[in-house]
């Protein structure tokens, strides 16, 4: 196989240029073997463009047998559109021959015998011979690589489009030192710089001067490198100097060899969210402060009540006790006037004692814990009236308690409400010949109104506003005893239940006290 090829070279070259016989740098046989062993299609071309020599790869690649190629113009292996260009290029090459790769960067194509084209890359090497300059062309089919490159560039393109198009996130690449390498639209929108302005700049300009002084930018990269990624929230600075609260994820990017290539930084402007979170926590904080203040006030009230409860009654006991001792031990030495004075002293201590107790009850209403239940107010009213009757068996009062009056609230406090209202009715009908007390409820616009009605002494509506104030009385104690705390207690309890309380009456014509309860409250768990 070796000899004929060699002969062909010789014959071809000698046919064209008899005076300059090709003489490769190594022996003929070795040169041919080298040619055949090459992985690429090898074509030796004379300076006139004729093919002087080809190897088996050339035949396989282009689909010609070597007989069809030898002695013909090399242009037959190129698509027609390249042929006009090639001779010039060829001549230029022959005038300044050098080793050169063409086709990388250019899109070169080979033409097969069957007319199909395929992408190629060509390496040209000059070959000095006695017959003159030859050119050796190594031709490689780069179809597979082109396809791969095409795919890669498509995928890069779509990735690029994806990143560029993201407007809500600033997405950028940093080199290992933290300088900006890429920039997207979101970054421009959020941070205010155009790509031209920022690429190559260090990313610490996105941080506040305080953060930079504290070494935060460097620390974030360090953390990202150590942990793979670093997520943080903090103030960042726009081009115009304004600040925004950012959620930032920095991820270390490594190449296939494990070499740090840089960092990706994805950031979002969450100033609005931060602001609403801050608003909520400010609200929570102020609610917490209020609760704490209320707690303090409640505790003070409790301490006050406790002290009143213990200390205010002791002197009264002394006054009453020793007044009583005076009468008992020195009664024979005291005249009626003196005894009357002592009686008044003792009555006053009783009254004072009652005031203290009522005051404490009023304080208890404010500070006691509320437990909400469904309460059978009818049953409660009957029990309370029965107690009044028992304590005052001679009274004849017509009591009408409506059946199945139900309320929702604290059972203890609601009992106090009914005790006070029914107690007032009981008290203020004490001088009424046919005393009548009614307890019930009625529906007004979907709301339950509870009422206690009597036909007793009543009151002047002019002073209705004073009724519910503590220690306010519309009757003198000698007519009707009392401390003026009862209705104040009722009002506080009803307010604590989210309800309203009102009174209607006329002097000598009885009174009606009405109240509501906030029925939306659920049971205490």
């Amino acid at each position, binding site marked *: 196989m070796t000899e004929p090829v060699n002969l062909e070279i010789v014959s071809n070259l000698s046919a064209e240029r008899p005076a300059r016989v090709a003489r490769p740098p190594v022996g003929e046989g070795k040169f041919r073997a080298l040619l055949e062993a090459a992985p690429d299609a090898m074509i030796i071309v004379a300076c006139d463009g004729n093919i002087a020599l080809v190897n088996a790869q050339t035949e396989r690649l282009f689909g010609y047998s070597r007989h069809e190629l030898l002695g013909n113009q090399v242009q037959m292996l190129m698509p027609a559109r390249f042929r006009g260009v090639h001779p010039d290029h060829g001549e230029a090459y022959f005038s300044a021959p050098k080793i050169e790769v063409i086709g990388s960067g250019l899109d070169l194509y080979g033409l097969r015998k069957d007319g199909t084209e395929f992408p190629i890359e060509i390496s040209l090497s000059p070959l000095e011979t006695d017959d003159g300059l030859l050119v050796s062309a190594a031709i490689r089919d780069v179809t597979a690589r082109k396809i791969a490159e095409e795919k890669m560039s498509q995928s890069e393109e779509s990735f690029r489009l994806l990143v560029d198009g993201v407007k809500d996130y600033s997405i950028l690449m940093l080199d290992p030192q933290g300088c900006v390498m890429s920039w997207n639209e979101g970054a421009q929108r959020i941070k205010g710089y155009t790509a031209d302005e920022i690429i190559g700049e260090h990313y610490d300009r996105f941080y506040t001067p305080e953060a930079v002084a504290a070494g935060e930018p460097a620390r974030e990269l360090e953390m990202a490198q150590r942990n793979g990624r670093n997520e943080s929230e903090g103030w960042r600075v726009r081009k115009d100097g304004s600040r925004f609260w950012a959620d930032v994820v920095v991820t270390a990017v490594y190449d296939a060899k494990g070499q740090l290539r840089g960092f990706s930084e994805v950031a979002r402007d969450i100033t609005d969210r931060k602001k609403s979170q801050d608003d909520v926590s400010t609200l929570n904080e102020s609610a917490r402060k209020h609760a704490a203040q209320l707690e303090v006030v409640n505790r003070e009230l409790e301490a006050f009540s406790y002290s009143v*409860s*213990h200390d205010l*009654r002791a002197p009264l*006991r002394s006054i*009453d*006790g020793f007044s009583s001792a005076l009468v008992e031990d020195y009664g024979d030495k005291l005249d009626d006037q003196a005894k009357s004075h002592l009686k008044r002293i*003792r009555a006053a201590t*009783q009254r004072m004692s009652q005031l203290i107790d009522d005051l404490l009850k009023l304080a208890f209403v404010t500070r006691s814990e509320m437990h909400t239940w469904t309460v059978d107010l009818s049953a409660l009213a009957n029990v309370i009236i029965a107690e009044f009757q028992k304590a005052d068996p001679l009274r004849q009062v017509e009591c009408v308690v409506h059946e199945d009056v139900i309320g929702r609230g604290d059972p203890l406090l609601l009992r106090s409400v009914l005790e006070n209202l029914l107690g007032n009715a009981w008290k203020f009908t004490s001088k009424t010949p046919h005393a009548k007390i009614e307890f019930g409820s009625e529906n007004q616009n979907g709301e339950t109104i509870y009422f206690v009605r009597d036909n007793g002494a009543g009151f002047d509506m002019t002073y209705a506003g004073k009724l519910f104030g503590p220690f306010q009385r519309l009757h003198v104690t000698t007519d009707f005893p009392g401390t003026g705390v009862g209705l104040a207690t009722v009002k506080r309890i009803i307010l604590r239940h989210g309800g309203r309380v009102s009174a209607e009456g006329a002097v000598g014509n009885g009174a009606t006290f009405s109240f509501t309860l906030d029925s939306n409250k659920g049971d205490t768990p």
Partner: protein
Amino acid sequence: MKKPVILLVEDNADDEALTMRALKKNNITNEITVARDGAEALDYLFGQGANAGRDTGMQPALILLDLKLPKVDGFEVLKKIRSDQRTKLLPVVILTSSKEQQDITNGYGLGANSYVRKPVDFQDFVEAVRQLGLYWLVLNEEPVPDSRSAP
């Protein structure tokens, strides 16, 4: 037989005088020992301090205990009484000004036998003392002394 002692723990001199008067009016003739603060009460009960050497085998038949006391308050005294073998079975009646729910709950929680609020009206007070004396000194059966020294 000598009537056992009543220990009155009371810091208010007026209340002390009135209590004495009420006891006398009810013909309760037991010897009354008065402790004017919590520390004094404990010294007496445990034979310590000013009462060092007192025979702690002899304990009061009844303790009338005020709550608001200087130095050691009534609850603390009650706690110590209930946690000592020598005194843990003694009847203790809290006799005080307040009827604050927290005081009543605490008092019973620490093992008080009764809780009585001192009435302002002296006649009511005399009646309360009469009932206390009748109940604790006459009707009530004490545990046998042996059980006091039981572990």
